[in-house]
């Protein structure tokens, strides 16, 4: 099974590499292959967890497991990724013990007041982040998720619905005094992104994204602001972690939940 999967993966990578940069829509056969590459649902508690082990291992500590699910219930993406300067690529931020002890990064909240402290105390709290095993985390997820609305993908939690129904109220800012840009009226209407066939058209809401993020989270690195100017913006590329795939697949709902973006399509990923 694993061997076969690896073959599929390898051939998909090859197809993708050979397909090059022409950015044309792929035909059904190839799409089928790409769909097979898409990872199936994993354990719900595991989706969006980031494991940081490079520096920990050097210092003889267990790796740090950061669960997005427990944090995103309290803060929007914006609060951490913009205000606190956490990169959206794992490993880029280069967090050190010295920095968080000085009250930066994790230390902003994990100060013993807002959340448990990064300092070594009695009893030692180190193990809450430097996890030898994740059994405790799994248990906490079950209690955490119990009352939240379900979906079949990612964490198995419909985060959008959870916010709308007031079950979670993530704060948009840690330094509350910051003024954010007023949301332009023009962008309040959801944008239709045309695809090769009307059945697969995508409805994109700027407003829903702005609720969690900032313009600069996407512009201009991921999407430049030229209309239809984003080159080679294809499903294939999304799937491999580009464009929408920067977030969807990693933390935001994964792309096997086709209908969330393609409302006319059925969720047929083969699983």
């Amino acid at each position, binding site marked *: 099974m*694993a061997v076969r*999967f*690896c073959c599929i*993966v390898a051939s*998909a*990578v090859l197809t*993708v*590499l050979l397909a090059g940069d022409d950015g044309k829509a792929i035909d059904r056969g190839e799409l089928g292959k790409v769909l097979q*590459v898409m*990872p*199936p649902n*994993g354990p719900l508690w595991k989706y969006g967890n980031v494991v940081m082990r490079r520096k920990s291992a050097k210092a003889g500590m267990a790796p740090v497991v950061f669960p997005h699910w427990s944090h995103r219930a309290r803060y929007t993406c914006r609060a951490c990724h*913009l*205000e606190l*300067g956490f*990169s*959206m*690529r794992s490993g*880029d931020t*280069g967090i050190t013990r010295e*920095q968080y002890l*000085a009250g*930066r990064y994790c230390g902003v909240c994990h100060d013993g007041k807002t959340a448990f402290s990064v300092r070594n105390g009695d009893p030692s709290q180190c193990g809450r982040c430097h996890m030898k095993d994740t059994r405790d985390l799994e248990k906490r997820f079950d209690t955490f998720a119990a009352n939240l609305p379900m979906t079949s993908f990612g964490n198995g939690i419909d985060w959008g619905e959870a916010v709308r129904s007031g079950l979670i109220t993530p704060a948009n800012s840690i*330094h509350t005094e*910051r*003024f*954010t*840009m*007023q949301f*332009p009226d*023009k*962008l309040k209407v959801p944008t239709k992104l045309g695809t090769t066939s009307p059945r697969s058209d995508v409805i994109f809401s700027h407003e829903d994204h702005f609720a969690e993020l*900032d*313009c*600069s989270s996407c*512009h*201009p*690195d*991921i*999407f*430049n*602001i*030229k209309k239809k*100017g*984003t*080159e*080679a*913006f294809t499903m294939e*590329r999304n799937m*491999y*972690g*580009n*464009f929408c*795939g*920067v977030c969807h*697949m990693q933390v935001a709902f994964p792309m096997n939940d086709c209908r969330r973006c393609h409302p006319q399509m059925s969720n047929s990923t083969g699983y």
Partner: protein
Amino acid sequence: MIKMFFVVPILLAAAGIAWAQGGMKKKKPLPCEFGSVTINNYSRQAGMPPVVFDHWVHRQYYTCRLCHVDLGFGMTVGSTKVRAVDNMKGYFCGTCHNGKMVHGGKRIFESCTKEYTREEYNRCVKCHTLERSAVKENEFYRFSKKMPNERLGNGINWEIAEEKGLIKPVDYLEGVSSKKTNLKVTSDFAIKTKVEGMPDIIFSHKKHTVWNGCGLCHPEIFIGVKKGTTKYSMVELFEGKYCGVCHDKVAFPQTDCQRCHTKQTQE
């Protein structure tokens, strides 16, 4: 099944390499690295490590105008073509880094010399940087802690720092800058730019002139731009033209949309 999870990151990494040119998040410079410029026209060939110049170290003491107008440093990396002899004669870096000029009670260390001892080499490598030093990084964080906080760039709001008097950049060096006689009063012609679909831009000519001087922007950076007939777009700015010459590299980055696209009046 477990193996699959193992494969996905590898797959993503491979795809990332193949497609690094589009749709990906770029690496953001760390706050201490923002505005850092590596000058290497001649150093490597002459057997010295490249020069690393940090704007954050210097802009707390001097205005952009002083260096970029009065001392003649160019606005793109490497464009000035500084030679070691220029520094030795007391121009460019050597204007200040001459072993004589006093700053904060200390002499500013000297720049290039033809001959040097092993001990003096330690001075060379302050500029001809061998590698990023943790000492400098810590110095940056110690400095930035005292400064008003900002989300992007250096993580410092330089404008407020100046307003509050936390930094007092000097705009005049005796003998170097031209002596200004009585200033005629120039009124600020703040420019309000109407942008469809985004909050309008309020650009303060006056503030920018104090920081940069007219000559730096006109006509070099804003080639042929006349009031009301703006010919530049956001995409061009993101490509590093016009406002993007400074913003993104040294002044606050253009990802901070609301600092330009603001309807709040900023004088």
